């Protein structure tokens, strides 16, 4: 069966510090991968998605970036965090192609102080 891992679960970082959140998927190959951000009490905002290694599509211009160095690894990064980067970050995967449901990781709660 497939599983998705995200870490860390919680993170408190000062403004201006770098960020690296990692997501890995097991039990499937060539998945579509997604990074979302969720503000408190709100819906999900799609940040990045990837349909293959090295292929990243950005949905929202900001100081975040994403990379997919391996088939089942998706990394969200920032060189310098802003206060507005605080939120709940969720990674998800789906089978390749369109028309499939997405499976979500447990999320990372990021607080920028």
């Amino acid at each position: 069966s497939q599983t998705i891992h995200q870490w860390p679960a919680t993170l408190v970082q000062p403004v201006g510090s770098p960020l690296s959140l990692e997501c890995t998927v097991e039990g499937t190959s060539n998945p579509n991968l997604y990074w979302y951000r969720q503000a408190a009490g709100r819906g999900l905002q799609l940040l990045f998605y990837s349909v293959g290694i090295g292929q990243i599509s950005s949905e929202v211009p900001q100081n975040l970036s994403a990379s997919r160095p391996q088939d089942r690894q998706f990394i969200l990064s920032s060189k310098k965090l802003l206060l507005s980067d605080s939120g709940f970050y969720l990674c998800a995967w789906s089978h390749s192609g369109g028309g499939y449901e997405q499976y979500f990781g447990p999320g990372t709660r990021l607080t920028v102080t």
Partner: protein
Amino acid sequence: SQQGEEDPQALSIQEGENATMNCSYKTSINNLQWYRQNSGRGLVHLILIRSNEREKHSGRLRVTLDTSKKSSSLLITASRAADTASYFCATEHMDSSYKLIFGSGTRLLVRP
């Protein structure tokens, strides 16, 4: 914006009652999906309904889709306290496969 809108934003019912949540969207879709999120957790997929389907069931869940009105509803029958969560609709649009556009969600509270 393609973003879906859920209605109501919050719903409080007694255990055993039915809960109905609605979702509206703006442009043509390939499919519409419903997800559930417990507080502070990741989302869990509930049901996917394709644009050529009108109704789908899964256990106590019933989803309807009206593409002419660009709307969907999620019905939870015989609710339980454990159904307390936020429920989101998400749409995959014809001009942007691979991506889902999520609504802002309905917060459901089921009182024991």
